[in-house]
């Protein structure tokens, strides 16, 4: 994965140089906003791909069977995997945040990086859960991508659906309740790792606490769901 991170940083540097030539005003602001969005999306994809690929390789090489044959519980194996992937996610968040320190104040970049780390840990947990359940690369990656896109667009969907709350039509109200239900079991990615934190105002302490709480709770949910699924698998 490291060489891919290197390529990503090179692309980010090239994009920053290009934007510097193109932008007439607010160059640093434009650079920070676009590069941050690029790095955030690519880091998420890299984490998901890394977790899914490495787990599928373990399935194919029968490493999983070998590990489960050892005298330790399945929970220990899964928790170990989670810790390892989370460490990789934290490292990636730190690496991709470094170039942003050239474009925005370091304190803001630090907060942004902390939030990105939380986001990537959630994505690593989601990827682990999906790959244990689906066991193949394409379905697992598609499920993680769908989860991520839904998590980031859920607010807009909720806003549209809330209009149905006033409707007398039961189908409208049912649709609204279903959307609210889905939103309740998805993390609020739209509140995490906001570009505005880099280019406008830093987040309030409450916002950061909310991100940390969301990451802790959602990661616990995904890891226990993965535990549940792993224990049900007839391996």
């Amino acid at each position, binding site marked *: 994965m490291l060489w891919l991170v290197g390529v990503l940083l090179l692309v980010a540097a090239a994009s920053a140089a290009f934007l510097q030539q193109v932008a007439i005003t607010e160059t640093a602001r434009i650079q920070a906003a676009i590069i941050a969005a690029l790095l955030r999306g690519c880091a998420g994809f890299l984490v998901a791909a890394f977790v899914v690929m490495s787990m599928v390789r373990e399935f194919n090489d029968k490493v999983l069977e070998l590990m489960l044959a050892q005298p330790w519980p399945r929970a220990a194996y899964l928790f170990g995997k989670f810790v390892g992937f989370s460490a990789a996610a934290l490292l990636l968040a730190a690496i991709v945040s470094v170039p942003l320190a050239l474009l925005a104040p370091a304190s803001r970049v630090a907060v942004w990086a902390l939030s990105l780390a939380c986001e990537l840990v959630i994505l690593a947990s989601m990827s682990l859960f999906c790959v244990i359940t689906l066991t193949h690369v394409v379905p697992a990656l598609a499920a993680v991508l769908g989860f991520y896109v839904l998590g980031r667009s859920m607010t807009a969907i909720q806003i549209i659906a809330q209009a149905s709350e006033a409707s007398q039509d039961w189908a409208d109200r049912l649709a609204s309740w279903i959307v609210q239900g889905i939103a309740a079991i998805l993390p609020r990615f739209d509140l995490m790792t906001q570009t505005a934190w880099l280019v406008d105002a830093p987040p309030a302490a409450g916002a950061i606490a909310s991100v940390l709480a969301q990451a802790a709770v959602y990661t616990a949910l995904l890891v226990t769901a993965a535990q549940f699924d792993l224990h049900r698998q*007839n391996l």
Partner: protein
Amino acid sequence: MRERPLADVPRWVGAGLALALALQIGVAWLQPRPSARAEDLGPAPGASTLRLAALGEPIALANLLMLYLQAFDYQAGTRVPYRNLDYDRLIDWLSRILELDPAGQYPLMSASRLYADIPDAAKQRTMLEFVYREYLKDPNRRWPWLAHATILAKHRLKDLPLARKYATALQQHTTAPEAPGWVRQMEPFILEEMNELEAARVLIGGLLASGQVKDRRDYELLGRRLKELEQRLKAK
């Protein structure tokens, strides 16, 4: 069967899952409720930018942009009415969406039935003019929205000359066979309300003589109207 029975799952895993799910629902409940504000509607991106962003899927992008606009339209929970939207920007957005998907009806439907249906005459006129301009580019597909605009101009704005302008355009440009007869027959009725009885009489007579009125009941209705007009003109 690849799956083992549920009883094989340790109880602490099931209990942990239920607890984590309950915590997640609690966290979601505590998060701020999403809301849209009318003043947040930003300027529409340029046509070339959107074409580039469409990645060869302009219809999909147009539909996504319409959904994006809806986030500002519905104003969930805030009760901010449409009239608080910046109508110049709104029209820019709708124009861009129509450029991406000229066959799409959603933008003009929204323009004539939602955005033009507000208690702000100036913004209403702006939106009706937008519908009129866009109608002229594709009359046979877009006539329903100008027909609605005509009704709004007549009954809401009480602006009969404006309603007549739209009705004239409908009569002159709409040739789609699926368009009902009344769409092309609104102008004489508006003229009648404007007390231009002679012009209305000439127009109805012309319509009947041209053979454009195919429906028998429409023909009879217009015929009766023509006689009434002639009687009123004689009585003058």
